């Protein structure tokens, strides 16, 4: 075990994967000698050479197109998009190509080796274009997996699982946790399951669900609620697609209440999908409407970031309203 922040855990996961398999390659803008703008790929070029860890030209659609080809060839590319906000030039390559490679070829070809890493989410005064949480766009695309870790231990285990998963995986890294989240991380290789949510705390009155950096927010909100005598069950969804309906539904069958929170805007956000599925599964068990605590339906603001974000107070209020309904 070593004390690491999330960046160190991600760097350690990449190092572990590259050491174990020479087909693993890391590339993206500034990923080479500089180690990425956040230093997630620090020292990888020095250790594994320029052929396996390198800078690309500044062209996201090219990075992912290139990565798709590499994965189809049998390599194991880990492509970095510098910010999730800049993933959209590659939308076509991800949505029409990565996601459909296996299906359209009848499984003759696939890009299962592909992992796309991108720093994601707000809370770092990044304004419109260094703050977004675009998971819902991709969650509408069968064929992709989408993973968001909540801490360093999760980041290493989920990233290694993503790299080895036989399907293309989008790995969104909550960048406000990069240095803020610190914890014990095993030095050896380990993988955490994709497609499985994790119940972090059992409770009886209300289920509170989120992923990534929202888990810290949920923890604070739940502390407040418990002081008011509300017993909360806390779940980290971890994988957005395909998501673990069973774990969430079983929890809501027990508690009768659900609060879902994410940073992305409300309309069309993934909480809507969760709410629809859970009301189908748990209709007769629900004690109150499923609550969504999310970013507002605006572009991501700068100065008023705090007002925009679904912080612990907003989540706490939603828990209270759900229980008091």
């Amino acid at each position: 075990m070593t004390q690491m922040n999330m960046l160190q855990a991600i760097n350690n996961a990449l190092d572990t994967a590259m050491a174990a398999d020479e087909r693993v390659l890391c590339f993206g803008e500034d990923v080479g000698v500089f180690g990425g703008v956040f230093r997630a790929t620090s020292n990888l070029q020095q250790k594994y050479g320029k052929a396996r860890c390198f800078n690309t030209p500044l062209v996201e659609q090219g990075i992912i197109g290139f990565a798709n080809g590499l994965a189809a060839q049998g390599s194991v590319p880990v492509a970095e998009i510098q910010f999730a906000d800049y993933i959209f030039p590659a939308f076509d390559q991800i949505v029409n190509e990565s996601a459909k490679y296996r299906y359209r070829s009848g499984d003759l070809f696939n890009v299962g080796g592909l992992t796309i890493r991108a720093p994601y989410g707000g809370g770092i005064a990044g304004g419109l274009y260094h703050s977004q949480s675009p998971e819902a766009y991709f969650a509408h695309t069968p064929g992709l997996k989408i993973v968001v870790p909540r801490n360093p231990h999760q980041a290493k285990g989920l990233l290694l699982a993503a790299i080895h998963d036989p399907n293309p995986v989008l790995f969104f890294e909550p960048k406000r946790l990069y240095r803020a989240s610190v914890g014990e991380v095993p030095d050896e290789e380990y993988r955490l399951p994709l497609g499985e949510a994790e119940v972090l705390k059992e409770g009886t009155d209300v289920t509170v669900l989120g992923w990534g950096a929202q888990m810290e927010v949920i923890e604070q909100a739940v502390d407040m609620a418990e002081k008011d005598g509300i017993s909360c069950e806390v779940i980290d969804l971890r994988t957005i697609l395909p998501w673990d309906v069973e774990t969430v539904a079983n929890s809501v069958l027990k508690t009768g209440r659900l609060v879902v929170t994410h940073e992305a805007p409300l309309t069309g956000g993934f909480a809507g999908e969760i709410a629809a599925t859970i009301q189908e599964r748990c209709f007769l068990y629900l004690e109150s409407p499923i609550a969504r605590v999310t970013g507002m339906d605006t572009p991501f603001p700068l100065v008023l970031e705090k007002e925009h974000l679904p912080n612990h107070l907003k989540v706490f209020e939603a828990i209270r309203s759900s229980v008091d309904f």
Partner: protein
Amino acid sequence: MTTTKSRVVYTPSFTDGAEFRIPTFKVLKQDGSLYKGAKAPALDKDKALRIYRTMVTTRILDERMLAAQRQGRLSFYMQCTGEEAAVIGSAAALDDADMIMAQYREQGALAYRGFTIDEFMNQLFGNELDYGKGRQMPVHYGSKKLNYMTISSPLATQIPQATGYAYGQKLAGEGNCTITYFGEGAASEGDFHAALNMAAVQRVPVIFLCRNNGYAISTPAAEQFAADGVAPRAYGYKMDVIRVDGNDVLAMYEATKAARSLAVEHNRPVLIEAMSYRLAAHSSSDDPSGYRSKDEEAVWREKDPILRMRLWLERKKWWSEDDEKQLQETMRREVLETMKRAQKRPPPPLETLVTDVYDEVPPALAEQFEKLKAHIRRYPDAYPKSAEHAKGGA
């Protein structure tokens, strides 16, 4: 750090690149003789005839399948007509282990590799033997064993993928390359520029083959770009480039052979611009009479690449009238017979609707599938293709 090593001038000096006029490489005249100073490539009789037979087969397949589409037997079709030399001449210059990542009009390259008429038909009719499991529109072929990447409809997406694929081949060190085909219209997509730039920077063994056939559906090349074709763009990426008469099979073969050696032996990506003409419509859904003249088409019909090669073969005494007649009859018969066979085969089983989305069917999708089957069991007459398959399960 600037990468420019240019000389310095002290008055404003503009250039539009006009000094870089790129010549067109030709070997074979329309009458089957060689241009003065041109030399035929080292092609033995067997290989020359394999190329020629593939060109004729492709032409016949295209004619018959367009007719089948017109008769309502097939939903859609796309012909290679007029571009057989560009596609098959280049494919013939490759190693069988080289990867082909095509656009959608390159069935000749696949036929050259040995895709059988049965295999073509199974895809066209989307029957249970289609490798793509009936999921894609006609002409979206793919073959793992023949190293031919399954076709994807979005234009130009295969071009940066070819760069990536070839980078993997370079690391593997097995001496192979990737060729990617695309039209002059697709070359306007951002993916084209991304692909060429990345290939040049990383010195990747990839051949970019642009079929400049004059039209992107109805849009003529003159409305696609202001430059002298697509070839001059290679300068901007510091990439080797050659422009070839795309209706000249010998020139296409020779140029691609040389490009392959630059790519594989020297890690130099190459852009080839094959100048040709799409003699047929864009697809069975298109009608060129709305945007070009019969006279224009007639000029290009005179430059038929298949006839040109045939006249060369006849001059060499490698081919005769009888050979031609026999090939035409055999192929027409085979196409017709295999079409009937393929059309009769059942569609892919219902479960292919949900398999291969992921390596395994996720639980939520499995649940949707069970619901669908239950629905089909209630309305079997509405789903004749799958009612039988829906009988099993919960």
